[in-house]
């Protein structure tokens, strides 16, 4: 019985390995976008390393954003336009913290009909320890627009989803 089952087990194991191997070697669009988000979270986070490695990590984010990216993540951050401004701000924020841990969770991806754009909603969580040892946490819901350029998914725009919409004052 066991001998008869062996080819089935081997075939099933090969199928599973093939499935995961194919997904690893040829990730689909959603997997690529999730990987971009993971790299961004990793690039923005910092763990008390020196200035040079922090700047190098922030600079690596260059490959994840389109040159004309706009980022409106809400106060206290100003609205940023352009990849250099975004990388500069990422380095500045990481530099101001002793330890900064950023996670991008609750990711939901809707691909455009042409397959070269995607709208992503996500929640950004940040845990920060300042140089004085004080702790802070922040969470905000964001929408990110992605576009595929030369086979790479790049962030084109990031906007804050406001839980409370301000009203007209006079």
């Amino acid at each position, binding site marked *: 019985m066991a001998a008869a089952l062996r080819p089935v087990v081997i075939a099933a194991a090969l199928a599973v390995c093939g499935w995961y191997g194919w997904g690893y070697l040829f990730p689909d669009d959603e997997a690529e976008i999730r990987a971009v988000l993971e790299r961004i979270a990793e690039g923005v986070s910092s763990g008390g390393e020196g200035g040079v490695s922090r700047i190098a990590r922030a600079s690596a984010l260059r490959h994840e954003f389109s040159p004309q990216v706009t980022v409106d993540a809400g106060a206290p951050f100003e609205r940023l336009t352009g990849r250099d401004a975004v990388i500069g701000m990422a380095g500045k924020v990481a530099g101001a913290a002793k330890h900064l841990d950023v996670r991008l*969770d609750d990711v939901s991806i809707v691909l455009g009909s042409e397959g070269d754009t995607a709208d992503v909603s996500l929640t*950004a969580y940040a845990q920060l320890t300042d140089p004085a040892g004080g702790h802070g946490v922040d*969470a*905000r819901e964001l929408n990110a627009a992605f576009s595929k350029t030369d086979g790479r998914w790049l962030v084109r725009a990031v906007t804050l989803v406001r*839980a409370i919409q301000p*009203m007209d004052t006079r």
Partner: protein
Amino acid sequence: MRLPLWLAGTNQRRTAIRVAVLISLAFVTFAYVLLPVRGVGPSMTPTIQQDDIVFVNRLSYQLREPRRGEVVAVRIAGRSAVYVKRLMAMPGDRVAIENGILSIDAVPVEEPYVVYRAPWQLRPTTLGPDEYFVVGDNRGMPMELHDMGTTTRARLIGPKTFGIY
């Protein structure tokens, strides 16, 4: 390992079951029923002060609609990042603030919980079908520093049930 009698009781198996039930109940309560929220910032002063803990009932709004005047949790992001505000106007209401006095459909609202009041001004606005007006109780702070405005039904998590002050 044998636990001392005062901790384990006379029947250790029964005690273990009780502990397991209590832990399960606590988990279910805090994961699905009560959301503890720590007061941060001055916007709900004096009702909720910095570092006060309030508990929000997540189930309430599954069973009934939100009511005007309730202190509610408004979801900002994820499962537990929330604002705590007072729900003051419902869809279809015409809301305005004139010299710090809030009115609904041109009728001034009596708000005994508002202790500090600055001359805020808010243009009369009729709320849309899924717009709820929320504002903090501290109307003495500068209006531009106070997060208030409209939110949607989906973001209203539930009302405050009790607090630890």
